[in-house]
């Protein structure tokens, strides 16, 4: 047996597709709607969640036998809030520029239900190593959807990707804009994120019949 057993690999692979936190578990939808107007923001958020969920899952897993079940949700909240605040403070002191980019996401991470969801569903019942892998897997699954949604929203809504004008300049009328193409400003608003997520769920379920409920 190598570093990762078959079960361990499944912990990382499942959330990427068949047990995706956004499209199947429907966790973390709020942030998926809020910050996918731009590809860069989606990537930053994905990396932040990867970090917080990976460490948070380990911490909760280590504490799983001493946490009183009556107040476990509050304990989970405190752990994730403390983690995020410490990271934010350290970044402010040592990587100020980076912290400016991330500060917008701090509140979104603390209240992200994907984090509470994984604490509650996995870390409370499993060992630290498996919890760590589960955290990594789920945040990757979350990140993949975020990046797909952001890709389409930024491309169709603003005509850019990572801020680069890939479709030409809409004001100077270059690139595709000279043929009468217009950006769809509606793509930048939250409802369209929901529609894009819906389309992804539709495609995923039509390809995998096992996911279809009666």
């Amino acid at each position: 047996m190598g570093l990762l057993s078959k079960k361990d690999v499944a912990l990382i692979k499942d959330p990427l597709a068949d047990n995706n936190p956004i499209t199947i578990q429907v966790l973390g939808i709020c942030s998926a709607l809020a910050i996918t107007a731009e590809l860069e923001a989606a990537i930053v958020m994905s990396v932040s969640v990867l970090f917080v969920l990976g460490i948070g899952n380990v911490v909760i897993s280590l504490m799983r036998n001493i946490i009183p079940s009556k107040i476990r949700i509050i304990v989970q909240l405190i752990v994730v809030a403390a983690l995020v605040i410490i990271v934010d403070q350290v970044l402010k002191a040592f990587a100020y520029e980076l912290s400016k980019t991330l500060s917008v996401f701090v509140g979104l991470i603390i209240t992200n239900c994907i984090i509470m969801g994984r604490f509650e569903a996995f870390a409370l019942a499993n060992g630290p190593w498996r919890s760590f892998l589960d955290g990594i897997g789920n945040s990757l699954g979350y990140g993949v959807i975020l990046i797909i949604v952001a890709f389409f929203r930024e491309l169709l809504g603003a005509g850019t990707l990572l801020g680069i004008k890939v479709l030409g300049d809409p004001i100077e009328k270059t690139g595709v804009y000279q043929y009468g193409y217009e950006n769809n400003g509606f793509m930048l608003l939250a409802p369209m994120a929901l529609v894009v997520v819906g389309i992804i769920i539709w495609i995923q379920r039509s390809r995998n019949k096992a996911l279809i409920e009666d």
Partner: protein
Amino acid sequence: MSKKTDSNIYTILFAIIMVIVVGGVLAFTASALRPRIDNNERLEKQQNILYAMGVNANDESSAIFVSTDEAPELFSKYITKQLVIQGDDVTEDSEAYLIDVKKEQTSAKAGNKRRLPLFVGTKDGKTFYIAPIRGKGLWDAIWAYVALDANMVVQGAYFDHKGETAGLGANIKQRYFMDDFIGEDLMSNGSFKGITVAKGNNDPKNIDKNDNEVDAIAGATITGDGVSAMLKSELRQYVPYFKTLK
């Protein structure tokens, strides 16, 4: 697993210990890092002020500050005077840039006379008057450093925000938005009018600099309205001082 963790005494004890430990760790981190964070914030203010008057390391499309190492030196080189305006009194104060605009706004609401900081900079023989201002966006505070000439025509601006939506309102700190303000006149026919972040603007390339309007960001209506309101209410207070310059 034993059920000892279900008892009330255990729960209460756990909660108390948890709060003390987490509180202690957070308090320790915050106070240990405070001096560094304060220093970073001070340097950032200098970078922002310099940015507004055109001392920056911008490339073609993104906004880049001068480096933190150079900031203090450049700040003392380009900023020739720092003024504090309080009613008709104008005093010089070399630490005026550390005045907390938010505190001044609150104390002005309580009936005190507000202290308005204004930084005078010179670059290539041109004089800039840079005002720090603060307002409300959609979620949280927004603020700006606006560099004006003696006639209240914008020469440069730097916008920032605490928590506007990434990709929408957060784009007020993008070059394409900030650069639109350059050359815009805050006055109209001799009276103060401000600059409106306008939707359905028929001047998207922003060629007309006397229309008191810049083009809004799609999907960021409330942040844009916040920017308009901030420019109007805050810069208006500087008008009496600018009148004395003529």
